């Protein structure tokens, strides 16, 4: 199952870092996200695009997980050669991840 079926997500940039907030569409699926979408799996999913570490934070009251991806934008918005220089598509990229 791909995350897009059970989750919403928004991302934002800060320097050369990107954060992706992932939310369960239905509160009962938060447990599933919590269990299956670990920092390690996200780091693995973004291999080749993200060079630094991935840290996960939890906000259960809104059924959300927040991932912070370091060295993610090839230098950051004003220095990157990428089309998506502000990392606006990272959230949709995470939604493509399969959890089982």
């Amino acid at each position, binding site marked *: 199952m791909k995350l897009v079926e059970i989750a919403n997500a928004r991302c*934002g940039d800060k320097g050369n870092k990107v*954060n992706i907030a992932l939310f369960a569409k239905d509160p009962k699926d938060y447990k599933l996200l919590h269990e299956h979408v670990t920092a390690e799996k996200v780091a693995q999913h973004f291999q080749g695009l993200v060079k630094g570490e991935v840290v996960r*934070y939890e906000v259960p009251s809104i059924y959300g997980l927040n991932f912070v991806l370091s060295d993610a934008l090839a230098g*950051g918005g004003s*220095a990157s050669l990428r089309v998506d220089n502000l990392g606006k598509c990272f959230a949709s990229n995470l939604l493509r991840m399969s959890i089982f």
Partner: protein
Amino acid sequence: MKKIRIGAAQGFYGDTIEGALYTAKYGDVDYLCFDCLAELTMAILAKDKAKDDQSGYTKDLSNTMKALLPFVKEKGIKLLTNAGGVNPMAAKDEIIRVAKSLGISELKVAVITGDDVMPNLPQWQQQGISLAHIDSGEVFNAEREYLFANAYLGVWPIVEALQQGADIVITGRTTDSAQFLAPAAFEFGWKKDQWNQLAHGIVMGHLLECSAQSTGGNYSGNWEEIDFNQIGYPIAEIDETGTFVVSKADGSGGLVSFDTVREQLLYEIHDPANYITPDVVADLSHVQLEEVAKNEIRVSNVFGKPAPERLKVVMGYTNGYMIQTLIGYSWPHAFNKARRAAQIIEQQVRDKKIPVDELHFDYLGYNSLHGPLATPPDDSINEIYLRLVARGNDKRMLNLIPRLVPPLALNGPPSLGGLINLAPRQLLGMWATLVDRTIIEPQVEIHFETIAQEVS
């Protein structure tokens, strides 16, 4: 209990004024607050100022003021903006000019300066103040060409300006949410250590600072059901406890829901338990969002911790150039044709010894937004554009690369269409560091100017 209503006016330099105008007319707000500055915006404004001493603020300021100043007089709505960029004093002159041209008098404009720390850099270095990079810890390189250096100011100078009766407060670099927290801190007389109230206020600012991103803009859920026409910008009704309700003006487009608000809540935030701002460290890891009515979400249960000892300073430095060329290839085998074109160009750049630090190829329609995570294209794909990008320090030599491309139309793979050359662009590096707030805050000043009533 006393409540005030704060409306979001602009989320970035270049944002439409329609949302703010609709709120001014129908939103029953006491304040309209702008966030006009991104890291990149400061670089654009610094380049403007280098060409013309009287520029360096956001150029759309004239139009926004022309549209909104009448509401300052008619409805008493106060305007708070960081549109001053790298030249807030010139921005003030422009506001006064627009006001006069509209025949508006008795307008009190406050300008806050002191965020520009470029002049302080040599002295700081002499004093051995570390300007190490905030993330990597790398040592500051003074040899680079810096275009700007600004500290992120907090809310208190803005509050002081309101206390002194300002109708309009214009600043340079502040933290994005400061303009929004300031009215609440001023109206409710919050003290500098009322951490829980300040934390609610800063989270309120965070939800409003990106305009429609709280009201359905950029929403990743059922976006097809959102009416993007005349999308309403968020309005917060906040009370003295700090608890607030996010809504939008009746009749506007968009949506305020548990889902749209929670998406904005974590936008550009790292550790939700430690959202660091100059005025308070907010803990929103236990936040409660409650739908109290259609298009009304109450936000509560935010906690505050003492403000940090150090303030963030961001500097921008010149970091070479990039050039870009796009070439389209049609079915059949569009991807293979584009890939072969990339190999040809790469070989020629090497053979002609054109100095480049990086050659970068994307295939638009396949992987330009998803990079290595894109799934390979089906061979039935109709078309693919090769995006060829080079980075280097020698602009003249870089310009030789686009010239290698047109001959491919006759000398390379078949069915090339849509050749687009884009002008070289300067790249900027960003250097973020933390400095002790005691070396910034003594520089902060408030300047006032009032247009007196005209004698008839």
